[in-house]
C-alpha cells in the first residue's frame, strides 16, 4: 500500500465530489416530483393512467440503468425529430442526459415506495378525517400524505443510497464525477487499490451523511414515539 499515492489522489477525487452531489441531488429532486405524480396517477383508478404508470415503472425497474443512460444519451441523438426539437440543447448535454436517466429511474422506484406507503395509511384515519368533514384534497394533504411520507422514509433512505451509487454510471457518458476521475487516475498510475480505497471512502462518507439526514428526518416526524421527559 502506497500512502503517498493515496494522500495525493485525495484532492483530485475530492474535487469531483461536487459533481457527484449535484447529479444526485438534482436527480433525487426531479425523481421525487415524478414519483409523486406517478403514485397519484397510479392510485387514481383511471384505467389509462394506471396502464401508463405501471408500464413506466415496469420498464424502468426491469432494465439496467446503464441501458437507460445509453438509450437517452446515444439513442435519442439518432432520432431526427429529437435533434430538430427544442429539447435538443438539453438532450445533447451528457450532464442533462445523466440527470434525466437517474431521475426517471429513481422516480419509478420511489413511486412504488410511495404507493405502498399510501396504501398502508390506516383506513380508520381516513374515515375519521372524512367524519370531520375534510374534503378529499385537504384529507390527502393533512392526513394521508404526512402519514405516508413518515412510513416511507426508511425505504426511501435505501433508494437515496442506491442513487448515490448509481450516479457513478454518469462516468460512462463522459461525466468526470468521482468514479470517472478514479478510473482515469487508475489508468494513469496503476495504483488500483489505493485509488479504490480513497474513492470508496468518499462514497461511504456521502452515504453515511445521507443515512444520518434521513434518520434525522424520521426522528423529527415521529415526536410521538420519543420517550417523554
Amino acid at each position, binding site marked *: 500500500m502506497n500512502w503517498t499515492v493515496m494522500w495525493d489522489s485525495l484532492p483530485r477525487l475530492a474535487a469531483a465530489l461536487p459533481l457527484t452531489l449535484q447529479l444526485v441531488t438534482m436527480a433525487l429532486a426531479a425523481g421525487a416530483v415524478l414519483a409523486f405524480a406517478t403514485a397519484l396517477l397510479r392510485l387514481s383508478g383511471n384505467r389509462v393512467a394506471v396502464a401508463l404508470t405501471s408500464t413506466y415503472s*415496469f*420498464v424502468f425497474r*426491469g*432494465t*439496467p*440503468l*446503464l*441501458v*437507460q443512460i*445509453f*438509450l437517452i444519451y*446515444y*439513442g*435519442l*441523438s*439518432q*432520432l431526427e425529430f429529437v435533434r430538430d426539437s427544442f429539447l435538443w440543447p438539453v438532450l445533447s448535454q451528457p450532464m442533462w442526459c445523466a440527470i434525466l436517466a437517474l431521475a426517471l429511474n429513481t422516480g419509478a422506484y420511489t413511486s412504488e415506495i410511495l404507493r405502498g406507503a399510501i396504501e398502508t395509511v390506516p383506513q380508520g384515519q381516513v374515515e375519521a378525517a372524512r367524519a370531520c368533514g375534510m374534503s378529499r384534497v385537504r384529507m390527502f394533504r393533512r392526513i394521508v400524505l404526512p402519514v405516508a411520507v413518515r412510513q416511507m422514509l426508511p425505504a426511501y433512505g435505501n433508494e437515496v*443510497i442506491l442513487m*448515490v*451509487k*448509481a*450516479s*457513478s*454510471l454518469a*462516468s*460512462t457518458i463522459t461525466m468526470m464525477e468521482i*468514479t470517472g476521475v*478514479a*478510473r482515469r487516475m*487508475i*489508468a494513469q498510475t*496503476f495504483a*488500483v*487499490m489505493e485509488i*479504490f480505497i480513497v*474513492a*470508496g471512502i468518499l*462514497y*461511504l462518507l456521502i*452515504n*453515511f451523511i445521507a443515512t444520518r439526514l434521513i434518520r434525522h428526518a424520521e426522528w423529527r416526524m415521529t415526536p410521538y414515539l420519543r420517550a417523554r421527559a
Partner: protein
Amino acid sequence: MLDLLTSGLHGWGPQLLSGTAMTIAVALSSFLLGLAFGAAGAAAKLSDSLVLRGLAELYTTAVRGVPELLVIYLLFFGGSGMIMAVAGIFGYSGYVELNAFSIGVAAVGLISGAYSTEVIRGAVKSVPYGQIEAARACGMGRWRILRRVLVPQTLRFALPGLGNVWQLTLKDTALISVTALAEIMRVAHTAAGSTRQSFLFYSVAALLYLALTTVSTTAFQRAERYASRGVRRA
C-alpha cells in the same frame, strides 16, 4: 421473432442472442458465487467471534456503500495483481492473467454476496429458536440440526429476498460491458457503433433485459409457491 433476430437487426441478431446467453451465464454464476459469499457472510455475522463479525460487517458495509462500477474497476484493473500477490505467497512467480468472464463473475458475485449476506442472515434469524431447542432435545447434533431444521426453513424465508438479489445481480451484469465481455450491453454498444442505429440497438437490449427480468419474476413466484406448499395460509 427468430427470423427478425437473425436477419432484421442488420445481421446483429445472432450476436445479440449469444450476448443474451452470456448475460444469463454471468448472472447465474455470479448469483451462485454470491450465495456462497452470502452463506459465509451470514455465518460470520451470526458467529460468536468478534473478528469474524467485524470482517463480515466491513464487507457488507463497504460493498453495499460503494458504486458497483468502482468494484468492477478494482477487479478489472487490479484482479491479476491481487491473484499474483497471493500466488507469490505460495511460491508461484509466473504471470497470471484473468479473462473477462472470471473478472466479471468475481466482481458481480462479490456485490451480490453482500446483499445475499443480509438476506440469509435475516432468514436464519426468523427460524423460531424453539425449533432448534426442540431439535436439540430430540438429540440431534449440530450438523443434523443445520441440515434438517435450519437450512430448509432458511431457504423458504430467504426466497423473496433472494429473488430481489437475483434481479439486482442480473441488472449489474450490464456493468461488466466495460470490461469488453460480449454480453447484451457490449454487443448492443458495438452494433450501435457500427450501424449508427443506437436507438434501435439499445431498445432491443432493454427489451432483452425486460424479458429476462419478467421470466425470473415468474420463476421466483413459482418457487415461492412451491417452497411454502406446506404452510397454512390465513
